[in-house]
């Protein structure tokens, strides 16, 4: 057994995994890593299953001390700064920690979320079979706080190495979306404005959703519709015309019309933007969306096959 103690953790640092799927019909969103591909790659780089539990680190940062070692960890996601044993490194690497060594992860040149995975199973409280933290309730693995001790069931050690950060794992400012499913509640001009205009990320964002600053895109007439399913990536518009993109901890249903829905893969890149960054939506047809999803899944699989030790 190997243990880590948390020395400092900023807000929004949580345990996450590949998500709690199949429970939306009971009001439970998947939760899990905001940037799903990054957590999967951090795990794969250590030979873990892609959806294993790890820590999602916000720009507020995290410091751990290794109580027993040696054990390897990996870091992916945003370009954060990593301090370890007197070294100052970038993210995207596999490191080995020895007993008594500290690891500090803090905001770096780009990105909003960094993923820390552990070689060997991280023991985490499960809720409905998953360690993903559901933010609004704290159910699952939970918020990481100073003083907390994390345990690994089967610690392993492997060679230190730098990992390549693929282009598609960087922040993404052009996001593909399929119009609707309530596009009919928006005037043609409004839809054109939505897809033609720049928007900006605001400070009003958390794991539930990200409010955008940009042109108002108010629906016509129907300000509310019979409550129905919301997805990660739904772009919902309240009566004031402000667009919000729903993220991993979204409410499962709501009555605001959705002007568009982002492709699942683009959400990983959206969440690595920072407040005040610009973004824009590109309309694709459902057929183009499927083709893009398959093309990107193939690129991910090819890269993932090479990152495995």
């Amino acid at each position, binding site marked *: 057994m190997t243990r880590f103690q948390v020395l400092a953790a900023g807000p929004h640092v949580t345990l996450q995994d590949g998500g709690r799927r*199949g429970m*939306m019909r009971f009001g439970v969103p998947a939760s899990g890593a905001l940037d799903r591909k990054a957590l999967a790659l951090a795990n794969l780089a250590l030979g873990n299953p892609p959806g294993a539990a790890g820590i999602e680190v916000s720009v507020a940062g995290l410091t751990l001390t290794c109580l027993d070692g040696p054990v390897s960890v990996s870091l992916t996601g945003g370009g954060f700064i990593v301090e370890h044993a007197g070294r100052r490194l970038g993210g995207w690497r596999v490191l080995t920690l020895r007993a008594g060594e500290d690891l500090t992860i803090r905001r770096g040149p780009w990105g909003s979320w960094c993923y820390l995975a552990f070689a060997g199973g991280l023991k985490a409280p499960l809720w409905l079979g998953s360690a993903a933290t559901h933010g609004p309730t704290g159910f699952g693995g939970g918020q990481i706080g100073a003083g907390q001790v994390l345990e690994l069931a089967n610690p392993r050690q492997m060679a230190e190495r730098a990992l390549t950060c693929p282009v598609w794992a960087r922040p993404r400012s052009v996001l593909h979306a399929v119009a609707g*499913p309530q596009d009919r509640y928006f005037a043609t001009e409004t839809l054109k404005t939505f897809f033609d205009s720049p928007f900006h990320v605001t400070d009003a964002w958390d794991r539930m959703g990200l409010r955008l600053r940009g042109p108002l895109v108010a629906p016509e007439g129907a300000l509310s519709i019979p409550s129905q399913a919301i*997805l990660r*990536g739904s772009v919902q518009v309240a009566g004031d015309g402000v667009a919000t993109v729903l993220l991993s901890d979204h409410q499962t249903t709501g009555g605001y019309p959705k002007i568009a829905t982002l492709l699942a893969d683009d959400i990983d890149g959206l969440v690595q933007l920072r407040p005040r960054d610009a973004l824009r939506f590109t309309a694709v047809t459902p057929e183009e969306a499927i083709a893009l999803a*398959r093309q990107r*899944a193939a690129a991910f699989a090819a890269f993932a096959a090479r990152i495995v030790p």
Partner: protein
Amino acid sequence: MQPVFHPVADHAVLVEFADQIDPAAHAAVLRLDQALAAQPFAGFAEAIPAFVTLLVDFDPAETDHARVIHHLRGLLEVPVSARPAPVLHEVPVCYEPDFAPDLPDVARACGLTPEAVIAAHLAGRYEVAMYGFAPGYAYLSGVPEAIRLDRKPSPKRGVAAGSVIIAGPQCLVTTLTMPTGWWIIGHSPLKILTGETDHPFRFKVGDHIAFRRIRAEALP
């Protein structure tokens, strides 16, 4: 009842049976949900029933919108076998003043005595229409006309888990301490999030609910 199929992003189809709340549309949602559970397609991920819509989520590596819509149309054409009799759950509620802060206001707004509000609430025939908002929040349709009120002008914070709340035709037993703009008319000790691994949620969508009055002494 012929629905409209809306493709959603690269991984879902929204099946819409009506654009306003309507009992026939809701029954059609439940029928399709059940048929899909009995006959899922390759790549099916999950289905989320709501008042007049069923959202069907799928894996784009295995299928696409057109094939999913084709499968769903096929399910709609199959003659409907009678729905199995829905499970009836009895939900205990304490309506005593400490647990029913809004009961006097509801009574005043409806022109009834508090006892008559309680009697009306107990007489309602409720169905689990959908889950939403938060884990285990089961929307129960069937609040009698006599006690249907719009939600309060402003929400109250920190409303305890187990509160029995009403707004319009809906009733809910809350599972978490959360703000709500609905009217708090009682408290139930029944846990909808059961904490049991093989049966984590008390109700299924489509189940029937009857409320039973209990005294405060019966609360744990």
